[in-house]
């Protein structure tokens, strides 16, 4: 895992300025690295036959260290066994390296394919010239070029140096038919698995440096509060404590030569806080403010027909969701080594470039004076889309004049996170005489994640909603709008972001309409999707046929309509986000008025599947994550403080609660779309719809077990 050299950075960076994403042609004969074929920033082939694919996204469990190289290897005609990977740090070579928005595959599908194909073409040219035959007589296969007429073969390793003499084709031919795929679409073994079963895998929290010290921060427990003063007399008596000091308005750092020393030092540190303007903030007031804002003016996300002007049988409902925390298993951490005119960072981060830029800004450095290395991530779920941990670590390294690893405890992670925005939803519909909706309206009232972070949100619409608030049914009249409210509670992007809130409210409400019309919830949805239509939602086009497809497949796999064991009930829901279509059927029984989930069937249509095994992990894992969210995930605020602290009062799902989950996908050769987040949103409404089927009680507020 060596980061790109400075030399590569300069050469390729210059090429990047031309806007040709894959066209980074590195000159031959670079000092020290002459024995290498590196036609572009994603790929290196050495004469020993080793093929290194650079992964410019972060591995947080979703499998990018396997799926992205698979895409390149497919077009390269590589022998998968020869592929090794290199993790890119913050770079200028790869465009936006953010790992989020279920975007890694969908945004690198083209560049990775082109990178592999371009290299393949160069290797074929090299072999053809070597043999004095036409290119057309040669073919690439299994990391070698073959000339079948003369039964000659040269491996990519043997061709590597010669191939680097040729210009890179800018528009190499790509495979047109999925039937040609040998790697894409296959259950290739994950590259990262062996190191994760024997203790070798290095996460951020494991990273070591000579002379490394450890730090914990005492942060103001009240949102927006500050350090008034601190007394470190006791802290300094703890063995190994090297430094205590205020590193920002709201935090005091304790640096020691062991993690435990820093923990003990922080435990006895006496900080007086200036609690600031939020000292009386609490969850009840926040929800009251959301409800009160619901009558304000909304920014239109989607509108068709005249949603407000029809009369008939009118149905209305309000839904509400709490703040939630990501709680990845690896708590926050970051290693920083500040050296005056440079700073090096090792971080489990989803945003190496943001880390680079924010550390540079905080330290008064230029971005190219900050080097950011990306480690493995022990889960992300959006928490590591922030860069607070890196700025802190850099500040502590500077203040204490030492390389330092800042570690967050679980309580730090829970209480100083950025949270899924709490939301309030008002829905209404007018039904015709047959019970079909002639109008449908959904108003979202919530804080703006992007707005809170200071970026401009055109027309009062949080930009995330473009990917996460789609209406996928065809109604004659419909309105989806958004009322942005301000909140001091730090907001962040949590797996599926606003899609979870939108799906819970809208898919529960569709179920309400089906119940009011006395129709089967599946039939009701299929009727609304019956006509083949393209529904435009910002830049996306949602096809009713594809949503119908996942619904029908989920229903079939879950035996929808067939008898269930006594006491069991089913619910169904579907949603579209990050370009993908997802439907889920949940089977439950009620035990002491609580749902016990027995079985979940999930079906996704995410276009071309790269690796079915990894996709299955994303679906099943997403459903487990969503089930914990639906049942009991809630962050509450009292006296300006986050109440929950650890896995006792913010409890993820455990194995004895995990249902049987079946994961399926629709065979498709459409371009790939998101997979990490789409499995999350339909779970809560499908579950609550099952509860309704069992009890005739509608759950309109999450978590269920509150």
């Amino acid at each position: 895992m060596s980061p790109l050299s400075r030399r590569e950075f300069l050469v390729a960076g210059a090429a990047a300025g031309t806007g040709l994403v894959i066209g980074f042609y590195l000159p031959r004969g670079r000092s020290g690295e002459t024995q290498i074929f590196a036609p572009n920033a994603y790929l290196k082939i050495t004469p020993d036959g080793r093929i290194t694919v650079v992964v410019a996204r972060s591995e947080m469990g979703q499998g990018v260290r396997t799926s992205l190289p698979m895409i390149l290897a497919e077009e390269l005609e590589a022998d998968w066994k020869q592929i090794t990977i290199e993790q890119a740090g913050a770079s200028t070579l790869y465009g936006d390296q953010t790992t989020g928005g279920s975007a890694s595959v969908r945004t690198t599908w083209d560049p990775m394919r082109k990178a592999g194909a371009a290299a393949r073409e160069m290797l074929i040219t090299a072999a053809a010239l070597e043999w004095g035959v036409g290119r057309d007589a040669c073919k690439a296969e299994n990391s070698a070029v073959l000339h079948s007429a003369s039964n000659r073969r040269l491996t990519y390793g043997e061709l590597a140096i010669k191939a680097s003499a040729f210009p890179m084709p800018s528009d190499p031919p790509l495979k047109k038919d999925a039937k040609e795929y040998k790697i894409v679409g296959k259950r290739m073994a994950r590259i990262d698995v062996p190191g994760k079963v024997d203790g070798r895998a290095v996460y951020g929290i494991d990273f070591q440096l000579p002379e490394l010290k450890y730090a914990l921060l005492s942060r103001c427990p009240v949102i927006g509060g500050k350090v008034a003063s601190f007394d470190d007399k006791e802290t300094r008596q703890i063995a190994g404590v090297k430094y205590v000091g205020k590193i920002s308005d709201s935090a005091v750092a304790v640096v020691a030569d062991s993690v435990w020393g820093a923990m003990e030092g922080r435990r006895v540190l006496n900080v007086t806080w200036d609690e600031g303007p939020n000292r009386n903030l609490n969850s009840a007031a926040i929800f009251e403010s959301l409800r009160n804002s619901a009558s304000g003016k909304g920014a239109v996300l989607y509108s068709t027909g005249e949603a407000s002007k029809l009369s008939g049988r009118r149905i209305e409902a309000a839904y509400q969701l709490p703040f939630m925390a990501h709680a990845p298993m690896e708590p926050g951490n970051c290693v920083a080594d500040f050296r005056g005119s440079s700073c090096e960072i090792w971080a489990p981060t989803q945003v190496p470039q943001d880390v680079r830029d924010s550390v540079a800004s905080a330290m008064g450095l230029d971005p190219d004076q900050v080097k950011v290395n990306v480690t493995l991530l022990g889960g992300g779920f959006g928490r590591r889309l922030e860069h607070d941990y890196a700025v802190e670590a850099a500040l502590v390294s500077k203040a204490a004049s030492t390389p330092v690893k800042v570690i967050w405890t679980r309580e730090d992670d829970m209480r100083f996170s950025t949270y899924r925005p709490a939301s309030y939803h008002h829905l209404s519909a007018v039904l015709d005489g047959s019970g079909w909706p002639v109008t449908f309206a959904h108003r979202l009232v919530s804080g703006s994640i992007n707005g809170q972070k200071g970026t401009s949100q055109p027309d009062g619409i949080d930009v995330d909603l473009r990917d996460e608030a789609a209406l996928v049914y065809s109604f004659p009249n419909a309105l989806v709008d958004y009322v942005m409210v301000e909140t001091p509670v730090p907001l962040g992007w949590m797996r599926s972001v606003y899609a979870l809130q939108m799906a819970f409210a809208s898919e529960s409400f569709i179920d309400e309409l089906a119940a009011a019309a006395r129709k089967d919830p599946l039939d009701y949805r299929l009727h609304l999707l019956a006509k083949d239509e393209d529904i435009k939602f910002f830049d996306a086009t949602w096809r009713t046929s594809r949503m119908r497809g996942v619904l029908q497949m989920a229903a079939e796999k879950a035996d929808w309509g067939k008898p269930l064991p006594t006491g069991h009930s089913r619910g169904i829901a579907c949603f579209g986000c990050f370009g993908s279509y997802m439907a889920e059927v949940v089977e439950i029984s009620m035990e002491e008025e609580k749902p016990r989930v027995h079985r979940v069937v999930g079906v996704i249509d995410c276009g071309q599947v790269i690796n079915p095994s990894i996709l299955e992990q994303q679906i099943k894992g997403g459903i487990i994550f969503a089930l914990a969210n639906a049942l009991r995930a809630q962050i509450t605020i009292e006296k300006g403080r986050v109440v929950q602290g650890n896995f006792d009062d913010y409890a993820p799902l455990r194995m004895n609660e995990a249902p049987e989950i079946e994961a399926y996908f629709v065979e498709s050769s459409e371009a790939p779309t998101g997979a990490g987040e789409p499995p999350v949103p339909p779970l809560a409404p499908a579950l609550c719809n099952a509860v309704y089927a069992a009890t005739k009680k509608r759950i309109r507020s999450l978590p269920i077990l509150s």
Partner: protein
Amino acid sequence: MPEITLRVNGAERKVSVLAQTPLLWVLRDTLQLAGTKFGCGAGLCGACTVHVEGNAVRSCSTPISQVAGKSITTIEGLGANGLTALQQAWIAEEVPQCGYCQAGQIMAASALLVKNSQPSDDQIRQAMSGNICRCGTYDRILRAIRRAAGSGGKG
């Protein structure tokens, strides 16, 4: 600080740390065995699970003074002489996603199989419920333990 002697992965190790230091941090920081993970610091998630005299123990909540003279096995020691059948099953079933909790999961499963070489699915679920996986790998954990038990491996 007193010197404490441990037997870690078969080798005698002497450490001088604060007596209340949790075993977890001695393993990770002092002995550079970072395969054992910090998850909650409160014995709630199982990411820090190691074996002390063959029993699964939460190293984050075990003061070093309690394990003086005891024999400790970590994930690094489990497969020191070649991967165990359990670790091989973990690879065959491709269990890990982010992988952060998996060392603890494997140590917990290994201790289970030593006590009960043929656990039922319910026994597996109950025994493994102390270990949280936020990625949701539970079905593959179940399959891997079944596979290891079926192959007669002791984990």
